[in-house]
């Protein structure tokens, strides 16, 4: 079988103010015709740069391909003129990008954007190209393609936009399709659909595909071969089956282990750091950690009194209209939610984007004023408190936000960030005492006390989320809402943070509400799970119950969407073994 694309000893350097950074180091792999190669690795490992190198779209300056060969159909792309390369781009090699939200030109109709490459490469007339675009939109499963071609990107959902991107990429029936994290920014349910679509298309067009992701679970279904990259280098390269069956490199092992699976319920997740030390050497895995426990949902009235009671909570946002911009209607983001949460327990909250999870979480803390309903915390009806009392209440109830980048003030040092809540709530009599506590907090969340004087931008994403957790802990709360606290993180980092949250719960007897759209994560961490749709709870039960015996279709749909984390053949084999 001939190789469609061969990458040989590729080196890419970036000229940064700090010096030359090698983003891709001596990378070689092949993409055979009609096969899918998965390129996996954590954020910053050089996946995108590799793929951009194939397209010759590396921003220059600062990037430069310093050496290597990229042979496409026997032709070294690196030796081509820009003019010739342009004929290949979009025609023979197409690419789908990570961010469907920003990768489409917002001011042109999607039909036009698809037509553009058809007209350019296939010499179609505008009319022909438009008709072909409609056909393509139909193929990628966009409902009512005729009308949709007339839409602008902002009039489509994220999943639809990604489908448009796909339609655009396959328009000229390329021989090679590069997908750079095409699903990362999407909801689990939509992610599922997109992956299925890609799989079908690849089957249909028999093209070679390079599929990039940081989540091994995602490509389990689709890849024939897998290339694992770690810190600019390829650390492992094998068929999908072999990678999942017998991962060789500790990093690969960690990647496989760190995704919570619905069917297993370990006490804590293994992470890359359990397999590998800082220098990249393999270490022995502490097997006790992988201990499989069956979470038993037991309630001890004594130990677990009801901490939070919510009755018929509503949050309505006004919709303005008319000449004077008066409120003409209300958008019911939270529409009659009631539940009870016991101390020391975790309530998982799942649902699609926009169903009202965040709004509910914030209204519990009165960061958004509820329109109607009661929130009773520890016997106090907090919906009735005045400003001052509410402010005092905040030392008991805390929240950790989704985005570790934007939830820390970039102009404050970590110590300022951690000490601010203490000052506000008179924790610690002197500055020294507070500093001591800040140091203690840093160690608790697994950071170093010396790092207190740093600014947030000097930390990685996972570290930042730890700082956010430390800030929430600074006031010694009993109750914490985690609003998608791990959604923005790489799978491997996500596992570390989840472990940390569990450890802290154990140590301090914390109560959590854990919001996520990822059922597997929720299942891993929660005692109870509530499924939310359109501002209401459609289902609420013990975690295992919801997973094993979903009652509502909506819940079933959510469950199906979760990547299995294993190639299908392997799954089949496994189930066959059992």
């Amino acid at each position, binding site marked *: 079988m001939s190789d469609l694309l061969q990458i040989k000893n590729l080196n890419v350097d970036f000229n*940064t*103010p*700090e010096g030359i*950074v090698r*983003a891709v180091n001596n990378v070689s792999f092949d993409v055979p015709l009609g096969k899918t190669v998965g390129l996996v690795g*954590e*954020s*910053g490992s050089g996946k995108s740069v590799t793929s951009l190198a194939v397209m010759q779209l590396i921003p220059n300056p*600062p990037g430069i391909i310093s050496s290597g060969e990229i042979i496409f159909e026997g032709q070294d792309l690196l030796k081509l003129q820009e003019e010739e390369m342009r004929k290949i781009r979009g025609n023979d090699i197409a690419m789908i990008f990570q961010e469907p939200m920003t990768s489409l030109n917002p001011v042109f109709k999607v039909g036009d954007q698809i037509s553009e490459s058809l007209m350019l490469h296939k010499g179609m007339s505008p009319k022909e190209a438009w008709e072909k675009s409609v056909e393509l939109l139909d193929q990628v499963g966009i409902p009512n393609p005729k009308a949709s071609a007339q839409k602008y990107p902002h009039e489509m959902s994220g999943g639809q936009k990604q489908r448009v991107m796909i339609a655009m990429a396959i328009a000229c029936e390329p021989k090679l399709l590069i997908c750079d994290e095409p699903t990362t920014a999407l909801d689990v349910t939509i992610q599922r659909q997109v992956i299925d679509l890609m799989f079908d298309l690849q089957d249909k067009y028999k093209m070679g595909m390079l599929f990039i992701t940081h989540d091994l679970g995602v490509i389990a279904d689709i890849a024939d071969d897998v290339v694992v990259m770690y*810190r*600019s280098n390829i650390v492992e390269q094998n068929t999908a089956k072999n990678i999942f069956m017998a991962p060789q490199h500790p990093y690969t092992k960690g990647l496989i282990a760190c995704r919570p699976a619905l069917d297993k319920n370990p006490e804590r997740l293994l992470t*890359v*750091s359990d397999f*590998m*030390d*800082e220098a990249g050497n393999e270490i022995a895995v502490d097997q006790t950690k992988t201990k499989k426990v069956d979470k038993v949902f037991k309630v001890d009235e004594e130990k677990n009194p009801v901490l939070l009671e919510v009755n018929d909570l509503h949050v309505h946002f006004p919709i303005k209209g008319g000449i004077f911009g008066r409120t003409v209607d209300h958008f019911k983001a939270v529409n009659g939610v009631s539940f009870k949460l016991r101390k020391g327990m975790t309530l998982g909250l799942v649902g699609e984007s926009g169903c009202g999870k965040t709004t509910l979480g*914030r209204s519990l*803390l009165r*960061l958004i004023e509820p329109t109607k309903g009661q929130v009773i915390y520890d016997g106090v009806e907090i919906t009735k408190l005045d400003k001052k009392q509410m*402010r*005092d209440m*905040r*030392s008991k109830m*805390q*929240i950790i*936000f*989704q*985005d570790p*980048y*934007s*939830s*820390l*003030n*970039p*102009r*404050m*040092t970590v110590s300022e960030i951690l000490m*601010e*809540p203490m000052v*506000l*709530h008179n924790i610690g009599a002197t500055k020294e005492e507070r500093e001591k506590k800040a140091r203690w907090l840093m160690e608790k969340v697994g950071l170093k006390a*010396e790092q207190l004087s*740093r*600014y*947030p*931008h*000097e*930390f*990685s*994403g*996972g*570290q*930042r989320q730890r700082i*956010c957790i430390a*800030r929430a802990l*600074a*006031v010694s709360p009993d109750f914490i809402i985690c609003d998608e606290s791990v959604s923005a993180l790489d799978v*491997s*980092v996500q596992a*570390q943070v989840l472990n940390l949250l569990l450890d802290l719960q154990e140590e301090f007897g914390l109560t959590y509400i854990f919001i996520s759209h990822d059922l597997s994560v929720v299942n891993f961490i929660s005692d109870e799970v509530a499924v939310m749709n359109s501002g209401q709870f459609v289902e609420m039960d013990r975690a295992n119950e919801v997973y094993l015996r979903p009652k509502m279709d909506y819940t079933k749909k959510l469950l199906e969407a979760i990547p299995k984390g294993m190639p299908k053949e392997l799954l089949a084999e496994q189930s066959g073994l059992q």
Partner: protein
Amino acid sequence: MFGQTTSADGILVNEVTAQAPVKKKSSLWYDAWKRLKRDKIAVASVIIVGLYALIGLLSALGIVAADWNQEVGPSYAAPFENWDYILGTDIFGRSVITKVIHGTQIAMSVGLVSSLIAIPIGVGLGAIAGYFGGKVDEVIVWFYTTVSSIPGIMLLMSIAFILGKGITTVYIALGLTSWVGLCRLIRGEVMKHKNREYVQAADAIGAGHTRKLLKHILPNVTHIVIINTSLQFQVAIKSEVILSYIGLGVSGQPSWGTMIDDAKLELARGVWWQLAGATVAMFLVVLAFNILGDALRDALDPKLKGKS
């Protein structure tokens, strides 16, 4: 967003290995300064601005160019003929170079004072409007829409016209006409920051309005104020010339504006040195401020980083 663009630590992101070297001093300001330092032209601009400021200060203190009013030679002596008045003399036989030096004082103070007037108003109103929104916002927006719907030059002229004489008027007129832009900018920026999660996080730990606004939001918009100030300086210096032309400028002491205004008549008689002196002096500092403004924007506004 912020972090992604400010740190090039892609390789180090891994949780386990993240070990950014411990820097002695590190803050966004410090980083910005470091970035600025790398830009040779920007450093030169800082030096030029510093020099002008120094000259302005020395002349305000009467240490240099105090004798600008002295007759040192014949009326309209040509330049490069006598060391005592290397740039020639004006109608009264006063040294042009001394006047240029003395004019620095006016130019720099016009920039400084008008900024000192415009910044508190612009930042104050903009922050309040952006942060509190609602009725307060409506009133402030109405106010600046009203002000900005009057042509700037009209407003400038009317204020100068009504206040009448001299340097104070120039300060006030320029200060009062230039807060609007800043106010609008700050309002937009504060509105953006208000919804950032770190502000909500401050809310969640029980911080009040004052704290959120002063401690959390404002430090995050200071870079805009700084960039704006460096540009305000050059606008002010240029406006002084126009005001002088309309006859609303400085009196009783030399300014570049009045020197250029003089040149309007002198040029036809072949006296070009006042014009040249003032223009070159002004050109240099305005150029420096422009470059500095650009460099500061690149250094302080991470959004534009790497896009110069």
